[in-house]
């Protein structure tokens, strides 16, 4: 029953990978054409929602080919629209 998921020791759990990159840069791709690159701060309990606290954030908008605001002072990113998380990512190089 419970042996279907995560019983294989050789596999990498997604939340483990995200926990490993606390304190380092992370690149987040949203459902729309927006991407966020920032420093992933302290461990916010990554429950079901996966809201994230980031610092020194750069926001990229892909379609209009522009780099948006560079924000500091920690943002709380709503986890509802997160599609992909890329640890150590530098963002789209435009």
């Amino acid at each position, binding site marked *: 029953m419970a042996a*279907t998921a995560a019983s294989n020791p050789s596999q990498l759990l*997604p939340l483990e*990978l*995200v926990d490993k990159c606390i304190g380092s840069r992370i690149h987040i791709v*949203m*459902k729309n054409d927006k991407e966020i690159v920032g420093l992933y701060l302290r461990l916010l309990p990554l429950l079901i929602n996966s809201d994230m606290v980031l610092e020194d954030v750069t926001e990229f908008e892909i379609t209009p080919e522009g780099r948006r605001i560079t924000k500091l002072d920690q943002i709380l990113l709503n986890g509802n629209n997160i*599609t*992909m998380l890329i640890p150590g990512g530098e963002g*789209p190089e435009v």
Partner: protein
Amino acid sequence: MQRFVVQFYLEKRLSMFLLGVYEKPFNHLLCAVPVILSLCLLSFVVVHLQDKEKKKKESIFDLSKYIDKPIRVKFQGGREASGVLKGFDPLLNLVLDGTIEYMRDPDDQYKLTEDTRQLGLVVCRGTAVVLICPQDGMEAIPNPFIQQQDG
């Protein structure tokens, strides 16, 4: 004069309400009994359902057979990605290695090879995943519906 009428009317209503309660004490208790019974029934049903849900927690699809195999994932919002599945969890969060992301062009409807970029090791949020399939198991075919329109 009108003020007295209104005041008397309100006082009469209040006294009638109070009298109504005191006149039928057993009616008050009788009203409570079915409430208690329904609460018991409801709690029993809820507990029973929870037991059933605990047994049903296994997922209907076993992803462990796709570990270390290239898969294609489609997301809400039109994004597509493919990579080697390295891990997953019951919430359908995925770990993909060597990920290539394909993005839809709004002008060209749907063209795969327009915008592909390498992403490397990626965690995909399970709430955004719409479709998972093995990369070998799908191919692009010419539109089969055009022939029907001509005929």
